[in-house]
């Protein structure tokens, strides 16, 4: 199956010499190590398609779907209409998860004000994001096709609503390879109650499995099995890897299978990961000021800590980072839900952008903030479920923001109607977002394809879609 070119090269050029430190070192430099360091020059020839602005992506995935009406999309009209149903002409047959389409309107729960030179209109719940208003581009006109969490999250990540397709991070690392010498190039962190879409959200689908996202965990080893087991001291661990590789080297010379060369390199890499992963997690080198900027307690897993770790990963060449904050699913008490989630995410999201900027990394790092869909202008309440003052899922319109590499900050694009129900200007569908993210990385979404089961697949699917030019710097 997939045999990176370099092993072929290794086989033909180095095999006769046997494997030594020099050969290994050259392998490492070539970086043909699957996901952990897929060839830096790009796994797919011809990539990047154009000069990239961003080298890395940090996707702050607000899972559960935040209420745009309490955060970014101010609709005073809803307050006037509160308690009355929307006209059916607006609803136009949309299906909902829990409510009936004729449910009454719920006015915005929070006050909005204008911020920055750009005058972005933002809710009082996100003062820190408001403080970076001139660095971010807000899109108030996002739209998806899915109205349930798992399919919508999988769609946002893979361009398809069912599990089984490669995720954006997999496509990107497949296309561009890795710049991380001793870390995975696609990392997934989660700090909340659990991701509805599950592992399908970071699956490599039909791409080679080495392009799947690597989970960084909150308990135990951050990367599974990077800790040496009890009873094995460091010297034994070193000797063990030496022994395995010596034996494998002997086998390579006898059998001539180039995969053995890759395996030898992978054991070296595994050994280094045992150091590099804990190093990454060790926040003792971060200043008190930085920790305070994020609101991060180094010992406690949190969204803030994940954001800080993401910056450290970008510094180490990690290509794509997903941070999930679950819990935005405000079927009841949307005001309380937004307050709680903003308390967890507002400061750290803004800190990440500020920190990247002051370190000169923002220009080459694309930060994306948003959920899988929006929430209804109508109220959700149910006596039997004990719900009140909530909002149901709303696929027709939601808000996201992006900042950094390739993005023109200090602008708001798109608009919804007076009720916040439908988009009236600059509709941005999920594939458009994906195409735009790829574009910032130097990838033409129509040209990054993979043949599977008789078809040439791409992240953005078969429907026409476009890079959102207005977003670009």
């Amino acid at each position, binding site marked *: *199956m997939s045999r990176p070119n370099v092993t072929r090269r290794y086989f033909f050029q180095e095999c006769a010499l046997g494997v030594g430190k020099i050969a290994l070192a050259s392998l490492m430099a070539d970086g043909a190590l699957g996901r952990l360091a897929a060839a830096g020059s790009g796994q797919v020839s011809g990539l990047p398609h154009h000069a990239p602005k961003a080298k890395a992506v940090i996707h702050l995935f607000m899972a559960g779907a935040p209420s745009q009406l309490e955060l970014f999309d101010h609709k005073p009209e809803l307050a006037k209409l509160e308690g009355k149903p929307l006209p059916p002409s607006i609803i136009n047959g949309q299906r909902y998860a829990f409510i009936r389409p004729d449910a009454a309107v719920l006015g915005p729960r929070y006050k909005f004000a204008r911020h920055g030179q750009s005058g972005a209109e933002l809710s009082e719940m996100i003062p820190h994001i408001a403080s970076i208003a001139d660095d971010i581009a807000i899109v108030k006109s996002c739209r998806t096709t899915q109205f349930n969490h798992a399919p919508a999250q999988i769609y946002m990540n893979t361009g398809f609503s069912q599990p089984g397709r490669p995720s954006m991070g997999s496509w990107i690392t497949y296309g561009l390879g890795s710049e991380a010498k001793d870390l995975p190039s696609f990392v997934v962190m989660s700090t909340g109650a659990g991701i509805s879409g599950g592992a399908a959200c970071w699956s490599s689908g039909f791409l080679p499995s080495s392009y799947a996202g*690597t989970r960084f*965990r909150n308990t135990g080893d951050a990367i599974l099995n990077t800790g040496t087991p009890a009873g094995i001291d460091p010297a034994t661990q070193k000797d*063990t890897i030496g022994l395995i590789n010596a034996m494998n080297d002997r086998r390579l010379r006898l059998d001539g299978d180039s995969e053995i060369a890759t395996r030898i390199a992978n054991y070296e890499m595994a050994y280094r990961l045992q150091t590099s992963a804990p190093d990454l997690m060790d926040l003792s080198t971060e200043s008190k000021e930085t920790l305070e900027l994020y609101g991060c307690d180094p010992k406690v897993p949190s969204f803030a800590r994940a954001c800080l770790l993401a910056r450290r990963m970008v510094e180490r060449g990690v290509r794509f980072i997903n941070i999930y904050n679950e819990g935005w699913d405000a079927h009841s008490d949307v005001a309380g839900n937004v307050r709680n989630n903003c308390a967890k995410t507002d400061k750290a999201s803004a800190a990440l952008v500020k920190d990247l900027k002051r370190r000169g990394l923002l220009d080459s790092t694309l930060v994306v903030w948003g959920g899988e869909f929006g929430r209804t202008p109508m109220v959700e309440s149910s006596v*039997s479920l004990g719900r009140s003052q909530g909002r149901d899922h709303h696929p027709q319109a939601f808000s996201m923001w992006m900042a950094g590499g390739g993005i023109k900050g200090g602008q708001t694009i798109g608009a919804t109607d007076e009720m916040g129900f439908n988009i009236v200007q600059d509709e941005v569908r999920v594939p458009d977002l994906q195409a735009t993210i790829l574009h910032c990385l130097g990838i033409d979404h129509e040209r990054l394809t993979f043949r599977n089961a008789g078809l040439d697949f791409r992240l953005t699917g078969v429907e026409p879609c476009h890079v959102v030019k207005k977003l670009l710097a």
Partner: protein
Amino acid sequence: MSRLCSPLVLALAAAAASAVDFNREVRPILAQHCFACHGMDEQARKGKLRLDLADSAHGKGKSGELAIVPGQPDKSEVIHRIFSEDPDDIMPPPEAKKPMSAKDKAVLRAWIAEGGVYQPHWAFSAPKQAPLPQAGVHPIDAFVRARLAQAGLKPSPEADRFALVRRVTLDLTGVPPTPEEADAFVQDKSPEAYEKLVDRLLASPRYGERWARRWLDLARYADTNGFEKDRPRTIWPYRDWVVKAINADLPYDQFGIKQLAGDLLPDATPDDLIATGFHRNTMLNEEGGADPNEYRFYSMVDRVGATGAAWMGLTMNCAQCHTHKYDPILHTDYYGVMALLNNADEPTYHIPAPDHAKQVAEHARKIAEAEAALPGKFPGGVAALDPKVDAWIAAEAPKASKWEVLRPAKLQTTMPKLEVQPDGFILGGGDSTKSDVYDLTFDRPLKGVTAIRLEVADHPSLPNDGPGLTSYEGPLGGFFLSELQAWHGDRRLEFGEAFATNDEEEDRISDAAAAPKAKAKAKGKAARKKNNASAALDGEMSSGWQVLGGYGQRQTAVFRFAKPTDLPAGWTLKMLFEKHFSCSLGHFRLSVTTDEQATATGHPAAIEAMLAGAAPQDRDALRMRFLETAPEVATHAKALAALRKRIPRGQPTLVMRERPPSNPRTTVRYHRGEYLSPREEVKPGVPAFLPGLPKDAPADRLTFARWLFAPENPLTARVAVNRQWQAFFGRGFVPTLEDLGYQSEAPTHPELLDWLAVEFQRTGWSMKKLHRLIVTSATYRQSSRVTPELAEKDRENLLLARGSRFRLDAEVIRDGALQAAGLLSFKMGGPGVYPPQPASVTSEGTYGRIDWKPSEGEDRYRRSLYTFIKRTAPFAMATTFDAPTGEACIARRDVSNSPLQALTLLNDEMFMEAARALGAKAMAAATDDAGRITFILRRCVTRPPAPDELKTLQAFVDAQRARKVADKDVWTALARAALNLDESIVHP
């Protein structure tokens, strides 16, 4: 991933026939560049030109030019267009963004120059056995060697005996041989030694486990439902059936027919039903608010795709949204195949135990005994009972009402099918929605009606025995009556009070994360409404009368009219069932009364009739009813009630069941494959390029299943043989195991593939015979050493001048480590088990979290086939080594080689357990270092160490000792290193 035909194969093809080969060279180019607009898809066709058919291609297009003029490329418009530099003229057009290479253009030109002859696709006509190229040798070797000779290559020598026994044992059983087993073979000098070994392995129960796992990849087997909630499901009896069927060498045609349509076989056995689990392995979305019919549609899409991949070798999935761009599969063909599979319900089947009848009789006897004993338990005995019964009747009679059962003249619903049964109960079935309305019309006028009684009762045909239709997300078998209304024309008939026999059920939102919160809120709100019968009259859709499901569930609600009401002919009863999951009612009976005191007495209808004087009194029945409710014998009555609910039931599993003729499901075409764009009805059928379905059989699943294995079907046997070949050689004759269509690479050994496909059918579709044939060939037994010559001439080993060396499957690696350590359990079958893995795998990052409590004892070390498969958070070791998650049908696994694999083998707790056990075993087995080292190496890689290896390994041991590592830890460390060797995890 070899994306292109290797130059070697192309060169060989060219050598074999001087002419350009249409199928191997030309059709792929046409398919890639031309068919999208000039193929069989009428809608997409441009310029009225088809290049997939000779007649059309040799004729005139819209432009009036001749597309292909045989023998005259310069007069052929196709050539003119592909070589054109004018952007308005050039084909393929620039907007396709797929320019044709100079090489491809040259091939087309040469082909037309040679006559532009079309040939049928090799895989679409039935295979035939070509004469063997050489007599007196194994047929496989005859074909392979003929091919090697063409390429100027020689076969490799036979692998050494240790490699051979290791290879064939791993291939056939998925477990490495023990050193003793290996020695027995190595020392057996008889000419039949190898055949004896093969026969022993084919007869081993391990064989079925090994080959079941490969089949389960196609079946997308898992132990949870997938999607957000990802709850556990019980379908392991299907997995065990696969093992059993393979061990019994159930002929491959029967194996397939039973899985697709076992329920439709005459005299279907329990095993035949269990087998239909194949297509019940689809995922189930139980996320709150999902549209059940949308996800059922996706399940059907999955079933068509999996059927195409597993049996047909066709990318059927490509035709979901439009006519296949390359293969001759129309958009409507896709839905024709879906229609064949679509007419089934998806019940849970309780597998009767072998002594089921005895259990039932025994249980009935126990109930009868308990009933007979009940009067004796009454204080004062039977003598004291009669006066009490009289007094009870006197007290209960005034509360009872005379009820008259209503039979609707018309039953209309938004989706479920309702039918009135002889006992007046109405039975529902089929599909349902999240908001179902039942409209029941009555044609007999009634005067002065005071109340309507709604009896709901369990029924074996319903999910979880009913009485409701809820089959996912909510309480299974329950229902939720949101609103009940009576109408005559546009006049609403007002209800008043309502009563019900059941406790007011707390509503349960099944959402794992939200549940504790919802409960806390509920407690805080004392005023919160409960779900009761009155709530079905309150005009509020989100409240209603709820009954949970289960065997023996019987409840009654009584809805009083606001005042005695005349019900004219044509009056209707409207029932609304609405929740965030489908919650309609499946088994119920309606009655009316003119009694103003009517209420829900809790007595069975027959008893209430007696009490009301509407039926003759049955003293025994009344006495039993009294005893059931008498506080004096409450404990005994409760025990009796529990006994009645606890019927002997077999192990549940998920199956398919053909729908009743009264309620067939129609299949429609979905425009662009979108659920929200249903179009015209499509009749069951198969693509026209394949042999037709028999005319004299119903177009159903069974006929389709049999058709797959009909002798004239060109694909099924080839697909099976190609897949088996891949298992032994790491690559199929055609690398795309799931696709033998136009887009697939030409087979490396077409004659051999066809010869084997015919042989497979001829020998009764016996998989064991096929496997035996393959592993007894010299081709299979070759050394896998990659010589410099082979590395240069055939790096990918397409021509099989050597054995194949590839990494073993995840399951084989884990089982091999446990086997080496002497820990592996060979206990077969049963529910999934939980080998150790870090808790964070299933507790973090997934919504449907589970607490992965590692199994203890033997279950900790079962074969990996039995590891519980959780779709959204799969077993970490398995994922790291490319095992599928059960979310899609997988014909070929990726074979990756990553640092995370190294970390797993080095540091994972399970592998450490194996290392410790193996180290300890070595210490017990030998007293000297060399003996221990040899012991460890042989248990991992079968062969003994070479002298230089012994030295290397001894040096490691010495180095650890020198650092004062405890002896036990030294041997653990050595065992750990041995388990990590490339040779330990590779097909030798």
